[in-house]
């Protein structure tokens, strides 16, 4: 294939992949943009000021989103590290069934489930609370957390653990000083994954959180539906920053041998 041919194909691909993103950036920088102009009529930071004003919704939603995401990560790790270790190293009855149970949230379209969670939460007065939203995000994140953590622990060289036990260390001490540090990169990766999933989560929060808990994705959605494209674009960019940062860093944490053990 000549470079001209390659050029056209890659040009098209770049347009397809980066075009919509470029559109977002343009709207974030635009102040006025209407037909028939192909590019914004005027650029400016007026809408950035509006989005980030102290009494504004965006900062509050950002704080809400981050707080929920951090809590979700904490909850997920607290649940997934023991579970992952058990799945990787310990005897478990019905091991396949348990693995399948953890796969369930990914196997069923979750919208109907969210609708019913909201209804159940009504009875427990959890609807519209941060705690309720954190619970929903945690279940959603557990799938990844457990599978990746299990793979991370499985990838730790058994000989190292055996050596530590032979030297007289207890099971707990071995876990804390050998297994956990060695599995740390994989666990970090799953933590970041869970964080991002929670930050970007929309559907569950739409049913369980509204109208009291407004996360950044919900704010973006409302702005978009109301036709406020500038505000929607700016909030979208704020949402993207952690995701893109993760994408650029992911190589370091998810080594090939960890990935290959996912699903083992």
């Amino acid at each position: 294939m000549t470079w001209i041919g390659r050029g056209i194909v890659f040009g098209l691909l770049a347009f397809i992949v980066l075009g919509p993103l470029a559109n977002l950036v343009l709207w974030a920088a635009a102040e006025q943009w209407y037909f028939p102009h192909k590019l914004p009529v005027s650029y400016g930071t007026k809408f950035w000021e509006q989005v980030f004003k102290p009494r504004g919704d965006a900062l509050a939603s950002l704080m809400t989103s981050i707080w929920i995401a951090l809590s979700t990560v904490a909850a997920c790790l607290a649940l997934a590290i023991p579970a992952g270790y058990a799945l990787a190293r310990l005897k478990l009855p019905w091991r396949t069934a348990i693995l399948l149970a953890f796969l369930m949230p990914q196997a069923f379209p979750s919208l109907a489930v969210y609708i019913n969670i909201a209804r159940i939460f009504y009875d427990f007065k959890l609807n519209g609370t941060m705690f309720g939203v954190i619970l929903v995000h945690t279940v959603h994140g557990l799938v990844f957390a457990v599978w990746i953590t299990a793979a991370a622990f499985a990838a730790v060289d058994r000989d190292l653990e055996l050596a530590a036990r032979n030297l007289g260390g207890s099971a707990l001490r071995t876990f804390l000083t050998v297994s956990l540090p060695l599995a740390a990169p994989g666990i970090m990766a799953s933590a970041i994954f869970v964080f991002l999933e929670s930050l970007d989560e929309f559907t569950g929060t739409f049913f369980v959180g509204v109208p009291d808990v407004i996360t950044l994705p919900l704010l973006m959605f409302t702005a978009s539906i109301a036709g406020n494209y500038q505000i929607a674009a700016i909030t979208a960019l704020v949402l993207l920053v952690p995701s893109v940062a993760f994408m650029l860093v992911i190589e370091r944490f998810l080594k090939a041998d960890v990935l290959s053990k996912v699903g083992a």
Partner: protein
Amino acid sequence: MKTKVALLAFAAALAATPAIAQKINLNVVTAGDQNMVDYVKDFLAPQFEKNNPNATVKAVGTGPGDAGSQKIAEKLQAQKSQSAWDVDVAVIHQKMAGDLVREGLLAPYVRDVSTGRLVTSEASKNALGTNVTGYVIPMFQSQTAIAWNPTLVKAPPKNYDELAAWAKANPRKFGYNGIKGGMSGVAFVVGWVYANTPDSDRLMKGPYDAATKANWDGALGKLKEFNRTVVITPGNAGTLDMLNRGEIAMGPVWVDMFYTWMADGKLPPNMRLQLIGPGMPGQPMYYVIPAKAANMAAAKKFVEMATSPQVQAEGIVKKFNWYPGIDAQHVKAQLDDKTWNKLFVDVTPQELAAKGKTFPIKPYFDDILESYERKVLN
């Protein structure tokens, strides 16, 4: 023993502190588009907080259309058994107001606020067939009309039949949001049914007869045909957005949203409105106070302030381009002629009186929406 006495004394002292000195968080929950939330947050809240320094107003929006009001109803229903509810003031649509009054979830507060005597309209007494006297004060009266672009449309249609013909001749140049994205589309559909069935007065006033909906097959069939020639937009704002970008030349809009978007530079200044015959619906949104609101006194003060002639003039008419909720003469006295008349540039008071309709009574309203889903969408 001494500590016990001290503690008791402390508690008594606390309890004796007058309530007004305590910090109050007033929860105002409003259905409707973002402009409603902005109205509470940016206009009403600062004024109320200035006059009541111990109060903070928290404004929450539940979204446009009946879904937003449904969310508020669900919140109240979920708290039914508790002694104090977390919604102090709510702004809801007519349909839900009727339901909530019947379920006993609202307080009959109108007799306790001074502005109650300033509103005598039919809308303040009757919500789609349910008697709501004493429970509601209209926040504003809104009206839908067809927005049209003079550069793309030479002469706007005068009624629904002409509109259908125009849409057929100019495919995909008319747009509305169906019944799912917002109330402007719902209003359009209701207007269509009024125009294409013989007995629209009965739809608006009752009595209800379940057999009536069988007569709508012809009208709905024509609407299905019509839908093939038009664009379905993603919501109230979606219609305005497409009008702005010149993607459609005409579409139903709320008069207030139309003027607000134009003032914000989001709509070309040469756009016009046309209220087509035999009429298009409008609706009030109501201020209501839940029966067990946690801050009942502050809630009443809030509504009193929001329905005072000055606030109605400054906020409702001047800033947000709505028709006032309390009787017009009280508000008109507070404004100069120019500001008052800007509401009536394209839609004159006579046209409003003749062609501004109400929505149908609730059972008919539900029937229309269901029939649309069954016959037009499927």
